[in-house]
């Protein structure tokens, strides 16, 4: 049995919902934050962190019971989990499986770290970031962020 198979014994199967696999180790909680999932709405969530992986050496895995994430939602994950795979599960069967794709733009997901940016005030405007291969850039003030993107997640 591969390491990938072994972790399945640690995190139980879900009946219906979404399994986010191959998340970089340590990013699972950021994945939940970026999806706006904090458990307050009664979602059943399983999280495995730093489990062995053939592909990533160590990876996180997030299982969300009873909720199928939209393509837009999972694409946003690419900012912090570019290697993630998304499995949509119905009646214990994986009915869809796909990789995340980096969107061109993300809106209302990240906060601009530039205190001088108009989006940090009280204006009725959502943050908007262009997504590059290795960075994101605020569409309003132009600030480029290459590292610590997870710290910008608007929770």
């Amino acid at each position, binding site marked *: 049995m591969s390491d990938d198979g072994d972790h399945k014994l640690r995190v139980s199967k879900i009946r219906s919902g979404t399994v986010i696999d191959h998340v970089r180790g340590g990013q699972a909680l950021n994945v939940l934050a970026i999806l706006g999932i904090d458990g307050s709405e009664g979602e059943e969530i399983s999280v495995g962190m730093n489990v062995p992986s053939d592909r990533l050496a160590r990876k996180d895995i997030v299982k969300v019971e009873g909720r199928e994430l939209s393509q837009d939602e999972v694409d946003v994950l690419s900012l912090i989990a570019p290697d993630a795979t998304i499995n949509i599960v119905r009646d214990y069967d994986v009915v869809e499986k796909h990789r995340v794709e980096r969107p061109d733009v993300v809106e209302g997901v990240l906060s601009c770290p530039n205190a*001088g940016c*108009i*989006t940090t*005030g009280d*204006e009725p*405007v959502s943050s908007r970031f262009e997504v590059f291969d290795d960075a994101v850039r605020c569409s*309003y003030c*132009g*600030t*480029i962020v290459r590292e610590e993107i997870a710290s910008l997640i608007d929770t």
Partner: protein
Amino acid sequence: MRHDHVITSKQLSRSDIETVLDRAAEIADDPAAVADRHAGALLGLLFFEPSTRTKMSFETAMKRLGGDVVDMGSVESSSVKKGETLADTVRVIEGYADALVLRHPKQGAATMASEFVDVPLLNAGDGAGHHPTQTLLDLYTIRENAGLDDLTIGIMGDLKYGRTVHSLAYALSNFDAHQHFISPESLRLPREVVYDLHQEQERAQVREHESLEEILPSLDVLYVTRIQRERFPDETEYQKVAGEYQIDAETLEAARDDLTVMHPLPRVDEIAPEVDETDHAAYFEQAHNGVPVRMALLDLLLSGEGGETDE
């Protein structure tokens, strides 16, 4: 020119720039020809920061086109003081005016404001971000004095917070211009601007320096900006660099005779008054050029020749 709004110089192509500058030259040659061109039109002035040249030159430009202005006045005397958002303010004034001019202390303010209005909106400075109409008058002045191609320009001073510098650098990348940026380490160009110049604007030829001395003899134009004392956390750090970035007649002995010295103004002590009397000085001419350039821009936008935006 194909834009409804003028937000950054990045959006302006070489063709856009030349259209504005050519129209400005026509207007400068014969201002009487456009004296009634926009009679009855109103320009809304929204200045959330102090301004002398930009505000007054827009006002002059509009009046010389036969139109008039409605002025929000100071922040202290407006509804902003009551907590009104910028988004609401521009939506209100849009109903009074045919075009809006916005200066605001926050970066990205003009971009955001333009999303809430249908009339043309001109960015007159957004924090440390952009100042595209200043850039157009800078380019007009450079073209008149040195030409815009095969140009070697030094841009010196506060490059970090200087929005006129950022806008000028982007616009110059449309031309065959060698750009030399001279500043103390602490006031270098923002990395975002360098990224754009090197990555997105492949034609840009950009070098950074800490000393003017090595590059001065090769310059066609030296564009000086004020080193902003208030930006330094430590007065002694300011004192270390302030004197090095001062231009006087002695400094210019090493320059070419046809060097053009520019400054967006206001200046404090970075250009000695004795330079004013030399053939190098172009900064007052530069300020005066703001009127025909802004007349040209307003004429294009109010005539509908701004066209549909590319975005």
